[in-house]
């Protein structure tokens, strides 16, 4: 079985004048379809850079990133945009919902760029919102929803295109503990339903929900193991 995600010798160097900073120093990793992986690491470890590359928001300086059979390393902005649209659903720490639009319009956004007809868009947006338990909040604007509800709208938006990969960057970072449990429970459900999820966090509690933990430090993967071991050490 071929891996959904395959990174091979991925390096990322940021240049600022003559000074270069190597954020990723050679990452090799694979993620199979249906896996639930948490990437853990302290701030400055390179996990955000890794997330950007996994999300096709950025390209590696060196090495290859193959997502669902496509090598993304040499693609231009327009092609990357198309891959983001078709294959990846994003969940951000700050939700990133557009405040002027009701929930269902936020959810249909990726479908607009995919060229889905209007009627079908509304239908699929409603279905996605129902999937995350917000069937009765379709017309509410983000400002009228709680933080947890807003993040669930964002999850619905990530799911609406039926992407290969759900990529979550600190999804519980801005939520209280009840809302966090809520959203993580939703992720568990999605994982049980067969979704591939890569979650980036610095909280061991959150990481423990995933089936597999990748620890990244100083631009390198330092540990790759089943989640229970780590959570056992971290919790007790």
């Amino acid at each position: 079985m071929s891996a959904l995600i395959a990174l091979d010798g991925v390096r990322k160097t940021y240049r600022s004048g003559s000074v270069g900073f190597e954020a990723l120093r050679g990452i090799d990793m694979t993620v199979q379809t249906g896996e639930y992986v948490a990437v853990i690491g302290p701030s400055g470890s390179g996990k955000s850079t890794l997330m950007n590359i996994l999300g096709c928001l950025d390209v590696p300086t060196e090495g290859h990133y193959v997502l669902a059979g496509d090598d993304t390393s040499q693609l231009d902005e327009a092609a990357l945009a198309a891959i983001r649209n078709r294959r990846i659903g994003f969940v951000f720490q700050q939700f990133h919902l557009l405040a002027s639009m009701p929930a269902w319009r936020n959810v249909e956004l990726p479908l607009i760029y995919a060229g889905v007809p209007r009627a079908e868009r509304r239908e699929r947006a409603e279905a996605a919102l129902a999937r995350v338990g917000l069937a009765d909040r379709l017309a509410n604007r983000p400002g009228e929803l709680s933080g947890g509800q807003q993040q669930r709208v964002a999850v619905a938006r990530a799911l609406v295109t039926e992407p290969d990969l759900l990529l979550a960057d600190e999804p519980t970072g801005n939520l209280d503990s009840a809302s966090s449990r809520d959203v993580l429970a939703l992720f568990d459900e999605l994982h049980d339903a067969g979704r591939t999820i890569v979650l980036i966090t610095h909280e061991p509690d959150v990481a423990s929900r995933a089936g597999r933990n990748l620890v990244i430090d100083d631009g390198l993967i330092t540990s790759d193991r089943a989640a229970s071991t780590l959570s056992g050490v971290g919790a007790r």
Partner: protein
Amino acid sequence: MSWWETVRSGLAAIRAHRLRSALTVLGIVIGISSVILTVGLGQGAQREVEDQIDALGSNLLIVSPGSSTSSSGMRGGFGSASTLTFADATAIADSDVVPDAAAVAPATTSSVALVNGTTNWTTSLVGTSTAWPRVRSRELSAGRFFTAAEAEQGAPVVVLGPDTAWELFGRRSPVGQQVTVNGTRLTVIGVLTSSGASASGSSEDDLAVVPVSTSSRLTGSTADTVSTIYVEATSEDVLSAAYQEVQALLANRHGVTTAEADFSIATQASLVETANETNRTFTVLLGGVAGISLLVGGIGVMNIMLVSVTERVREIGLRKALGAAPRVIRRQFLVEASLLGLTGGVVGVLIGVVGAQVLPRFIDQAVAISALATIAALVTALALGVGFGVYPATRAARLTPIDALRSE
């Protein structure tokens, strides 16, 4: 993302910032409406002048005295000298010397007060010959013009312009009534029809016409000079021939060369041309000012679009993360700027058209709205939106999604 989808999202963005969009559009509205009005004013004035030449006939020559030089060496403008005489007019009327002249009317002009009982009215008194109505293309609405015999005798008769008649007699018929000029009683024998303003702007409807000998008696003038000699050519085709004949004759009679002539000859066409040139200069000048305000309006659109891009960096980043290609983002902002421009254009045209209806009531000047100018204004407004939208749109398209998402 389809065009229709893009337009709808542009409209939504404009609606989301109503006040700001309205203020942005205002610059374009003012620019477009003032361009339409100034061009309309220019064309309206031009049309009026053209209507007059049609009414007056285009085969008229107007001979005026040249400039005078005073003893101190000050030179006056054309018309300030008294170099034309009745003898000149009589000579031009000689069909052997000026075969292309059909009729000649010398005219003196002076300002007098006409009195009818307790009403008095100051107007210009024109002393002329019986050929005057013909060369000036004037007709009478009542009564008759004076006869050759009356002209010969210097009979105490007067023909009034319609405005003059109204001022002195109101609704009553003036024909047969008496008016007093400098103590002399004149009988009103006719009233002219209205001719409207002349090319020079003075009214041709407020005047009193008398035989030339009557005029000299009334004003106590003994001089043999006239202020204008009107010459009608036999047809429009021989106008320039008549011009040259009159010029040669007068130069010869005055003992000067045509280069240093002490008189000037204008055709109705040349007067119209002069008037049109003045109009055109004003139109270009005002149009230029209006054009500058359009440019300022366009810069306003660019300014607001740049603010909009900066303000919506996060939104742009999100849209890109969700799959919007740079091309799509650029198109979205271009469409938004174009919509602003077009809205300004449409509102500006509406205001211009309404202004064209309202303005003539206040300034006594027709405003012509041409379809071409209107379409050009709309196209310009749209082009302004697109032109000044390109830079902000390109900036939006170039934002990288990571930086855009991270900005706060």
